[in-house]
């Protein structure tokens, strides 16, 4: 059994990562999941959150990603994110900006359902915020 698989993180603007990884933790919409080599083929949508990738030498890289989906095959894992940045490049103001925007959008919404969706989204954002900003 191979102990690494090809991990790719792609955003519409560019290809962020294409490397061999030992494991990757992905914030799937049905809960966080860890992908390891020889994973069963899964296709899942992704919630906004943090992807953690461990490469062959054991170093962990973290990326903030924004929605999208993951295509997981035994030998590869491709994350197609709506937008993605490395944790080191993300800053608190940006996340604050997203949160404020989300708040504004929520106020304009009428239906309870939409509001609930937005609340979930806000919750995810604050999770990101806590990860990005070292407490």
């Amino acid at each position, binding site marked *: 059994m191979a102990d690494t698989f090809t991990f790719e993180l792609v955003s*519409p603007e560019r290809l962020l990562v294409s490397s061999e990884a030992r494991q990757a933790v992905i914030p799937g919409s049905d809960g966080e999941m860890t992908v390891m080599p020889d994973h069963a083929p899964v296709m899942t949508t992704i919630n906004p959150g943090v992807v953690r990738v461990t490469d062959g030498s054991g170093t962990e890289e973290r990326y903030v990603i924004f929605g999208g989906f993951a295509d997981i095959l035994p030998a590869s894992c491709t994350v*197609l994110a709506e937008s993605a940045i490395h944790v080191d490049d993300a800053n608190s103001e940006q996340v604050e900006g997203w949160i404020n925007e989300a708040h504004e959008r929520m106020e304009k919404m009428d239906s309870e359902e939409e509001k609930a969706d937005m609340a979930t989204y806000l919750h995810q954002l604050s999770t990101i915020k806590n990860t990005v900003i070292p407490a």
Partner: protein
Amino acid sequence: MASLKDLKNRISSVKSTQKITRAMQMVAAAKLRKAQEAAEAARPYSERMGAVLANIAGSLGGDDDAPKLMTGTGKDDTHLLVVCTAERGLCGGFNAQIVRRARRDLEALMAEGKTVKIICVGKKGHDMLRREFGKQILERVDLREVKQIGFSDADGIGKKIIGLFEEGEFDVCTLYYSEFKNVMTQTPTGQRIIPAAVEPESGDASDEPKRENGEDPLRGAIYEYEPDAGSILGDLIPRNISVQIFHALLENAAGEMGAKMTAMDNATRNAGEMIDDLSVQYNRQRQAQITTELTEIISGAEAL
């Protein structure tokens, strides 16, 4: 006959025009490189997206619960044309080409008695279509302030289109933009985005990198879907529309710069030719004047 002074003025004015066009050409060349890089960088995403979409669509087959965005409304009475052009002129026939392509389809559709609505992305297309089809233009998207087109710009347009679709404003949506072949050639293209033209799995092999076919015997394997295939597809298709618009905008940006570069190169060359012609004329006239003066002096001396 223009006087010497007039000629001199004209030469200097053409020279300064040439300076401007040359500067514009160089700016366009620099921007073109950037735009090409952006288009290049965006390619992996749309490729993967296409592959994944084909995969899911294949596994869903002709299911009835496939989203409307993919199957269409079952009618084709109302068409929405999204015409993407540049924000600025001075790029040869670039904008006119796209508009001509769109207008041809537009007229054909109207002749068939269909209702046609238009969304203009970019100022130039709007300017050209406004006079004739002003009433049919639903909206004009302004990207003038945008320096580097980001996915969010495309996403905004995509969401707008999907919103209109859900309100039943149109049945078929076609995207018009210019495909960037190389610096010299941009081909205006019409691409149907709603209902999504998802190719069957075998059909997309040519677009996909070969390595995926070779290395990946499991492509087309039975996937597990989280949450389920239908809702993933429902999530994917709107995103795919945005991706296609993004792709179109990037192609357009590269094409615009390519066209501008060529146009400005031509303009610079034309200005050069004009300067040469004018200089010849100027020198001749000056020579003629000297000769006249000489003749006058000589005949004056002879008369003494």
